[in-house]
Each structure stands twice: as C-alpha cells, then as structure tokens.
C-alpha cells in the first residue's frame, strides 16, 4: 500500500516559509476590514462656529471656530463645513480589530482610550491651527489617574504600522459628574493633534520576562498576528515576529501576568484564530493552535476579551 500526498504549491496554507520583510499594508487592511465591525462616526461642522458633536451618549467631541487649515498648504479654512471622522478604541478587543497595540517601543502601555480623528474638506486633509485644540470626552466608570497623552507615530520597516509615543501635544483630564441622579466618570483629551491619539500610562515593571509564542508551521509572519491581551489591565500587545526562531515575542512582560493569547491569521482568504489563556512565568515557548474561524466568530471572540 502506498499513500502519496502532494500539496498544492499555489496555496498559501502550504507555504511555511517565513519572511524577513514586514507585512504589506494591503494585507493588514484586508484582515482589519474583515474582522472590524466598529464603524467610524462621520459628521460635519461649520468652521465659523463652535461645535459639539455627540456621537453617542458616552462620546462627544468639541470643535472650536476658526481653528483649521489645510494640512498640505497651511492655508486656513475660512468657511464652509469640515467633515469629521472619528474612530474610538475603548475595549481591548477594539485594539485587535484595528491591529493597534497598546505598546510604546516594546514597552507595555495601559490605556484608557484611543481615537482616530480625521478632518477633511473638499477631499483635502485639514489640521488644527497652532494654539488651538479640540476636545474628546468619553465615559469610563473605571477611570484612574496617572494617564498621559500619546500620539501614534508611524514606523517604517518594522512589522507594525505605528507605535505610540508620549508627547506634550495634548492633555488628559478627568471628569466626574452626576446627571439626573446618575454618577458618571470619564476622561477628556484636549489636543490639536489629529489622526491617532490616546491616553495611556507606561507599565514600567522591573520584574519582566520575554513572552515567546509559537504557531504551527503553516502560520508564519506573512499571514499571522499574535496578540497578548492582559486580563487585569486594559492592555493589548501585538507580538513581534522573530524570524530567527520562527516565533512571536513580546519584551518586558511582567512576570506572572495573566494574559490571553490571541492569534489571527488570514491564509488564502480564509481566517484562522487561536486563543489560549496563560500566566507568563518564564520565557518558555507557548504554543497556540489556530483553527479555522469565520470573521463573525473572530469578532465575537474579540468582543468578549
């Protein structure tokens, strides 16, 4: 008896070769678009008037009057309406949906919220004028102090689109109010920076360890993402691909951290997801076993992290 098996060479699932090149943006966008059910809020406001846009009961944004210019020409926008698109990342699963980590150059961030604010007029990007700011206010009943303003800084030639960087271009404030007998708490960011902004604090723990995760050979750095979701913190880390060991890793993970590992892969337009809860005690390699999953299943998984 003989049993011959010939893998299809044209299928990505049979490609077990790792690459030293970063993921393509088109691949990242394809994955994100498939598993992302968070929609941006879109509205517009008059440049010559103060505007507060309330997207939902827990999120509002204030735009001041006469504070805008085209980004490329610095030419002020003096009239008309500016279109605003705002995306809010509040839950841990939201960060994975957009493939955005809460880390700053391999250091873990604990975040209270991240936003993507995009202003346009006549299909041209609009920026805030110097010494002006817009304000984002949102509800978070577990708000805590000690948060700082972070910007998303584009990165080149590494396996991520950007990283977070703490800057002085914005301020974080807390609010606590009682309305109609109900107490609400939350945060407010005041900044002139558009695009990716957030409020986080750096978890600088002395006793850390490297987290190493491996996947089956079919899942390579060409088709997979691995995230470490901290169970007791609002932190999500996207693990870095290590070509030498064909594994994914994260540095500066506090020892005995309780985390949930999540892998998301897209191979041949099919999705695979793996999840495993572990306590990181040492640098031992942790194996994840993805299974074929639909985008809806992955979204459900992420919403319950």
């Amino acid at each position, binding site marked *: 008896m003989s*049993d*011959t*098996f*010939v*893998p299809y060479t044209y299928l990505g*699932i049979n490609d077990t070769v790792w690459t030293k090149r970063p993921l393509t943006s088109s691949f990242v966008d394809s994955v994100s678009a498939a598993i992302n059910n968070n929609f941006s809020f879109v509205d517009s406001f008059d440049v010559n008037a103060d505007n507060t846009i309330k997207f939902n009961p827990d999120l509002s944004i204030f735009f001041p009057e006469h504070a805008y210019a085209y980004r490329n020409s610095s030419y002020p926008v003096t009239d008309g309406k500016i279109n605003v698109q705002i995306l809010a990342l509040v839950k841990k699963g939201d960060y994975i949906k957009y493939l955005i980590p809460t880390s700053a150059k391999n250091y873990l961030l604990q975040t209270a919220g991240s936003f993507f604010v995009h202003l346009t007029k006549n299909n041209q990007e609009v920026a805030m004028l110097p010494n002006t700011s817009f304000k984002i206010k949102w509800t978070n009943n577990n708000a805590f102090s000690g948060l700082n303003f972070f910007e998303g800084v584009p990165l080149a030639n590494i396996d991520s689109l950007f990283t977070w960087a703490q800057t002085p271009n914005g301020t974080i404030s807390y609010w606590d109010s009682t309305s109609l007998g109900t107490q609400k708490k939350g945060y407010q960011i005041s900044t002139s920076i558009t695009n990716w902004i957030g409020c986080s604090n750096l978890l600088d723990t002395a006793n850390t360890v490297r987290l190493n995760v*491996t996947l*089956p*050979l079919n899942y390579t750095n060409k088709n997979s993402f691995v995230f470490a979701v901290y169970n007791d913190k609002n932190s999500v880390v996207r693990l870095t691909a290590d070509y030498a060991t064909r594994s994914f890793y994260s540095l500066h993970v506090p020892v005995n951290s309780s985390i949930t590992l999540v892998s998301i892969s897209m191979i041949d337009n099919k999705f695979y997801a793996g999840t495993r809860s572990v306590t990181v005690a040492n640098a031992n390699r942790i194996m994840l076993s993805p299974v074929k999953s639909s985008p809806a299943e992955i979204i459900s998984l992420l919403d319950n992290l």
Partner: protein
Amino acid sequence: MQEKVFDNFIRSKLENYSSPVPGGLWEKIIRDKDQRPKGFWWRNRYGLLTVIAVVVVTAVSLFYVTNQKQNNLKNNTNSTLTINQASTEQNKKASVNNNSTTDINTPDQTVTTDAEINSTQASVTASSRKNDNISTGFMINHHKNGLFSFLQNKNSKTNTESSPTNNLENESTLFSQNEWQNFSSVKNSNAELMSLNKNVYSLNSLHNPPLNLRSIFGLGNDCPSANGNERNDWYLQLYASPDYTMKSLSGNGLSNTYLQKKDSTEKMFGGFTVGAKISKNVGDHFILNAGIQYSQLIEKFNLSTVNETRTTVVIVSRTVIRPQGDTTFNDTTTVTQIGYAVRKNLNSYKNIEIPIGLGYEFGEVKDKWKVAVNGGVIIHVTSWYNGETLDTSYKVVSVASKGNGGFYKSSTGLSLYGSISLIRKINDKLDVFAEPYFRVGLTPISSSIGYSQKFNAAGLTLGVRMKLNNKKQRL
C-alpha cells in the same frame, strides 16, 4: 462359374460368422442413458455457450479424425486382404498363403491372403464384404496360429512365420492347376475393377462405416484388439499460469455515481494460477482431469482525492546564533497541508478451486507434438480477500475477509473454462504443455454494501505432465 469360386470360398467361410459383443456393453449403454443430463445446457447463456463450444470442438474433431483415419488406413497394408495388380508379373515379390476350401469350412477358421506390396501401389480388397465388421487384421492377429498350423500341414515347406514364400509353389500345392487358373483370372479381373474404385472398396470403408462414432472418438471397436491394445494412461499435471483478469461490476440499486467512482478506482492487475491435476484417458483421445488449484486475482486500487487536508506533527529544531552563544530551539508543532492524495493498494482475491474438465487430444500417443482442446468447470471451494475499496460514502474501507466479518458474502462459486493445449513430448514419461485458456465466472461475489462482481480471466498455462504408469500401459 469360375468367377464365383472365390466368392463361394469366402461366403462359405464367413456367412455364419457373428462379431462378438463385449460383456457389459448393454449395461453400460443403459447406465449412460440414465445418467444423461436433461436440459442442463439451457439453464443460462453460459450453458448455451458451452453447447456451442462442444459442437465446434466436436465438429473439428470429426473433421480431423475422419481425415486421420483415412490416411492411416490407406497405409495399413498389413491388415488388408490385398492382391497386387502386378502379382502375376512379380511373383518373387509377393507371397500368398492359402488353404483348401475343405478346411475353411470350420467356423473358426478364415482364409487370409496377405500380400506385401509397394505402398505406392493401389490396394484393393478381394473380400466378399458380406460381413463388414470383420477385420482381416484382427483375424490374423488372433487366429494365425490355427491358420498357420493348417498351412504348415498343407505345405511341404515348413514355415512358422508369416514370412514371404514362393507364391507359385504354395499355390500349386493348395489348388489344382485348373482351380488356380480360375482363381488367378478372378484375381486379375477383380484387381482391375477394384483399382478403379479403390476409394469405394478400400478397407477403410469396408471396416469403418461413415458414422462409426466409436472409431471416430477413439474409443476403439467393440473388440479391443482390433486397433491394438487400449490406452490406459494416468497423468499428473503440474502447472502455473499468469492470468489476465477482468471484472464486471453490478450495482444492485446503488447509484451510478458510486459505481463509476468505484470502477474508476479499481483496475484488475492480472493474477496467477498454480495447481495440480490428475488426468486419465478415456479412449485414445479423450482425457478426463480433475485437480486442485490456487488462483489469485490482483486488483489495483488507486484512489485520488483532491483538496485533502492532512495535519502532521513535526519536531522542528532551530539554532539561533547569538554573541553570547548559540541557542537551539526544539518545537513540537504541526503542519497542515492541503493537496491531492493518491492512495494505492493491491487488492487480492484468493481462491482454492477444483477444476474438473474433459479434453480431447489430437494425434497419437507416440506423437511428439499434440494439440488438445479442453473444457470444464472450476468449483471455488473457498475464497478470501484483502485490500481496500470505497464504500457508498466514498470512504476507504477494508475488504479483508479476516477481521471485519466478511465484506463479501459468498466465498464459493463456479466458473467455466476452455483451453487449447499444445503438448510436447519430452520422453515416454514426461510431456510439457502450453495452454492458452479462458475462464468465465458464473457466480457473482456479493458485497455487504450491495454491489456484486464477477471475475473472468484469460491466461497461458505452462506445465508438465508426468505419466504415472509405465510408459504406455495397455489393457
């Protein structure tokens, strides 16, 4: 008056003669009649085929044997009563043994004129042919002692053997001058007449009527010694055959899609047969045989499946070169691949069988080359199988007869076979033969999932045939 001398002589000798009938002949006829199958051949189309095959074989046999008999008898001058046309001119070359008419009147005695002639010369009979069943050769063999003793008494010259003698001398002592002249003139006139009609009056037609089936089938005459001793040979045949095998598949209600898929995955891949038979002649040409054989049919199972997913556990070891020292990582992990799979297997259908058959050998035992036609049945005593096949859900299942309770329901069956043998005599004890043959399966093998299949085969049997008794034993 003179023309009737010889006829009277023969008539007076043979008119009261009756051919003896072997004992038990009538009982044998009754027994054969009772055992004759009634309508067996018309049970199915294979029976019809068998009948057709038998008819063809019989026709060929008749044609061949008839020609063979004629040729043999033409040349058999020792067993004929002949008169040389030129005997009167070449008396030195011919010898004639005679006796007087008075002595011939005794019932057990006959007259024989045995003339040695050139085989190229025409031979005619001088017998009155009143009784065609009488063979002159037979009479010479069995009664020559009486005849010769009589002749010895009549002749002044002692001669205990049938060696040629001086014809004129002998004849003159047996007959008077007048009698001999009359007899010679009759001889000459008859010789001329018979030489013109030698085919009509040949001894062949004299002693073998056109439809003498016993002679045609090589069973001899009623009197065994007419053709010499009967053949009584036992043989042991050892043989082996590479087989070309064929299979027919019946669905019994299963879907055509399944049958096509199954048929496309299985292809007969030949086989072989080995066995041994004991053979016994019946008459000079028919051979009955039976034995035991092992046959194995081989089937190639070849299943190709597309989009098959396979996951394999692997251990990968990677060494990372670092300034502080190389580190080796060993990971036990898995790899999943999607592709097409080809699963091959050799299925085998093994049978223990009993072949029973009847053959007809052309030619004589002493011939160096012989041809025989054979036919019969093969009884499958037991069968067992191993291999793989597709079930109705297109999954590969084992057909091993051991272990899963019998995938195939029946292990016995029946086949028909026919063959033509080319036999080469090596020595008196040993023949080798090559025998192209075919076999048709009559009994389908039914599977537990519904389908049934029949197997047919053709092959070339090669073997040896050893004579078990000493040379050619005669009864």
